[in-house]
């Protein structure tokens, strides 16, 4: 049972694609305009394909369709890069072309999830607790770089236009508006998902520790889950509904409350069983070593008492484990459905 996640990373990348239609009004019919147009024109295709990808990722049930749209987008970016590469500088002025190449290369790597080509993964790994945190941090750093390079590219266009007396105006197309609306919804979803994700991942560590029976790790992960669930509930209480839609907040809260109870009430029952079991094993070993004459009634009674205690703890622990497994499956299902419905409702089709 896993929590599904939409193709969030690629969609975040779209935010940085210049989403305005660029209209170039030449004051004179001179070559600089053609040059500028040649550099920025292919971005129209990118915008369209980005939308197709966003739409597929949000509404399609078929993973193959989603992947195909992503591959098309990757190909278009690669083609765009090749086109710009083949161009020459304009009268030894290469700033525009270089900023375009830099931006497009970062965009390509983000879309391909090749973060190591953009950020220092060793540094990221040192700053993160595990590979998941490293992935999220790398994604964030990569997107920061993308936004930064996008801004540099836009400014380079403006400088070029000013230098060669070209008038640039930006108008927002219908497609750009749709992408903006979709991005906002996905942004919101990502924010809520990140709040949940920390506890969700932490619970996975707790389940893993329970499997190994490592009492230290069970305790460490249990306490951490309790802390994270409390912190995240507090964070969640500060979030507002999205366009009057409070479904994500509600479902996220239910899940966090489940984690809190798992950490504070349910897992201690399992810990109690592990401790009693260890104590029982030792007692049994010592009891078996006693000679018949050493097995006094008092010792036999004590041993039987231990057996009774252990049986009670086993039953209690098993029932807690079953309860947790059942509830966990239900909550995860509910969350996945809630998320799919939210995207369906808010990302334009």
């Amino acid at each position, binding site marked *: 049972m896993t929590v599904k996640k939409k193709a969030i990373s690629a969609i975040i990348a779209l935010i940085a694609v210049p989403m305005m239609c660029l209209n170039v009004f030449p004051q004179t019919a001179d070559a600089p305009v053609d040059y500028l147009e040649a550099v920025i024109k292919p971005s129209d295709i990118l915008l369209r394909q980005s939308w197709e990808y966003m739409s597929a990722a949000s509404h399609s049930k078929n993973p193959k369709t989603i992947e195909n749209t992503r591959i098309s987008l990757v190909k278009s970016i690669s083609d765009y890069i090749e086109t710009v590469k083949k161009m020459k500088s304009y009268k030894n002025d290469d700033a525009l072309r270089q900023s375009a190449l830099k931006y497009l290369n970062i965009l390509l790597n983000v879309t391909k999830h090749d973060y190591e080509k953009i950020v220092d993964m060793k540094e990221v790994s040192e700053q993160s607790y595990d590979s998941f945190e490293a992935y999220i941090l790398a994604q964030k750093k990569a997107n920061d770089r993308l936004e930064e390079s996008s801004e540099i590219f836009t400014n380079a266009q403006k400088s070029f236009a000013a230098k060669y007396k070209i008038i640039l105006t930006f108008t927002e197309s219908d497609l750009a508006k749709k992408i903006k609306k979709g991005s906002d919804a996905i942004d919101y979803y990502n924010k809520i998902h990140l709040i949940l994700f920390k506890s969700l991942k932490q619970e996975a560590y707790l389940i893993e520790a329970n499997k190994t029976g*490592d009492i230290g790790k069970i305790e460490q992960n249990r306490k951490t889950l309790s802390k994270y669930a409390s912190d995240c509930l507090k964070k969640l209480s500060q979030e507002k509904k999205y366009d009057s839609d409070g479904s994500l907040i509600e479902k996220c809260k239910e899940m966090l409350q489940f984690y809190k109870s798992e950490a504070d009430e349910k897992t201690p029952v399992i810990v109690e069983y592990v401790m009693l079991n260890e104590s029982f094993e030792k007692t049994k070993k010592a009891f078996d070593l006693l000679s018949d004459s050493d097995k006094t009634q008092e010792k036999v009674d004590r041993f039987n008492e231990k057996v009774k205690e252990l049986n009670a703890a086993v039953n209690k622990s098993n029932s807690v484990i079953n309860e947790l497994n059942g509830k966990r499956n239900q909550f995860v299902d509910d969350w996945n459905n809630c998320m799919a419905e939210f995207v369906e409702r808010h990302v334009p089709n």
Partner: protein
Amino acid sequence: MKRLLILLSFCVPVVFFSGENNSVSGADTPVALELLRKYHFSGLVFDSDKISEIKRDFITNLDDHGFFFLKSDVDELLSVSLSENDLPYTNSRNAFFQKSIRTYKTRLTETLRLINELCAKSPDYTVDESVSKYDGPPVYPADERRKRLRWSSLIKFDTLSGVYEKYSEDKEKKPFKEYLQQYEASARSDAGKRSRQRISSILDNTEGFENYISQIYVNALVMRFDPHSMVLSAKFMKRFVSDLSSQTQSFGFAFNRDRSGDIVVERIIPGGPAWKSGVLSNGDKIQAVSSSGSAMIDLSGRSFNEVYDLINGKSNKITVKIKKKNGRIVTGKLVKQKMSGDNKIMTSYLLDGKKKIGYIGLPAFYTDWDTPGQLGCANDVAREIIKLQRDKIDGLILDLRDNSGGSVSEALNLAGLFIDEGPMMITVNKQGETAVIKDPSRGTVYDGPLTVLINSQSASASELTAAILKDYNRALIAGSRSFGKASMQEVVPVKRSVLTNPGQVSLKQVDSDFLKLTVSILYSASGESFQKSGVVPHVEIPEISDPDSEREDNQKYSIIPPKINKTAKIEKLDDFNAASLAKKSRSRISDSARFEAIRKINDDRKSEAAQSCSLNADKFAADFKRIIFTEGDLYKSVFAKADDYSAKLNSQDTELSQIDSYLKDVSADKISSLNEDAVVDETYRITLDYINLIK
């Protein structure tokens, strides 16, 4: 008084390295050298200076107190040229090795004759001569006459020591001279026998004389680059693995011979008979052994095979006489058992006084090396902490004294029980590449007041734990400055394939010799290393210490940690005023009769008087008593009952001990030692102050 400089280590009957059958017959030295060049931290360069040092070290290892070679032999051997290309002993152009072997054999054979001559008649015990302690580089006798004098003093000393044993055992306490008269002849004969045995175990080594010498030669090459790298023969590794296997009946410990020839405990299996008995610790020296009630057999001068058979022979019960690291001589009984997989062997105690302080002692960082996924000591400590928490402790003492280390990953797991999350250490390899190693698991098991106790023999993984907790301001560190070993070793088979494919190697696949080599140095998150310097405690507590005990910073060729520019950001807990705790403790210690006795014992051991011993029969007994540190009234005053607390087993195990009589016995012994331990007593008080300070 005629004062003769004798190159002799007191207390240890063995004065030179004798035959451990740790042969490297299968080792291909060129491969070993290539492995060293490729993986050793220091990056091996055999320049002419280093080759000269290796030659000298080799000669020293053959004769480290100047009992065989003459000065002229050594000068001549050192003058034989040796180039880097000819270094392997298998190389026919290595004239140095060939000549050394020939000279050594001749001198050993001559020495055997000399011993026979000297032991043939009783020497004069009225002459005022003495032997002195000397730990410096060997000084070789200039001629045969001086060599003879040296041996004559040694045999005299050894004979008198043998007589002293009879003297000390007899309750009548007649004058020493009377015992000398009665036992001199037999003691002299024993002394001669021991010395001849030492030499025979080299000359008639079962692995062959040349193989044995080649082992010493290879280790001189390897150990030139740091004291923790060495060659381990296939035979040794087989024994090591078998001794520690869970399938055979054993006493549950492995031992080896150190450079001065002593039999040293190398590893104790958690939960095994040696561990449970509490008699042995890593680094203890086994001096004598007796099986099934027979007389004690002195291990000095015996070959490693003989020692191995004496300890691991048919008998299921042995008594061992050992020298602890603090110099105390104790005896203890061990019974063989089939090793079980039961690793839940730790118990914890409560020091119940004004406050309830938990106490957990950890003698080694164990983990099951051969079974990945098995839980190690950190899990056992966590379990004990939970038991202690149920007893509502106000603070916790984690005792890492004499813990010589073990699994580094268990050290990280252990420190992680007390730290939420974050970087724990930085490792640096040969290429200067750094890696930040983080807390393996988020969250804590215990976040109350914690005191970690260390001493000069807390090494490696135990120092690392203390360093991490100190870095984070997470624990108060008490005791004495730790050993100072921050290097990490890997054990690899001496095989050409390892050069191209250095994968994980199971210690069970013992079909070649092994190389233990230092591959990286540990640094704290702040970029400082405790290599050589050790971890300095916040609060210093004196303890009885052996003036001869080693530390990393007094070991030859110990690696100097290079400065690094790397740091890792950690979220420290609030600073606390450790200086005020240290001040209070100092004032208590200066008023304490127990610590006054400890200071006096340590002073006596370091005193000039403890450095030499007269061979005049009138003075010998008094001098000898002083140099072997007999436990007298001073010791008694150190081990007094603590006033501030009373130690007891945690509640869960107290219940268990009503059925488990073994646990009852073991815990009763531990409780009485906790009640009498001056250092634990002071740590309890420091912990109370610490609790008041941070509350």
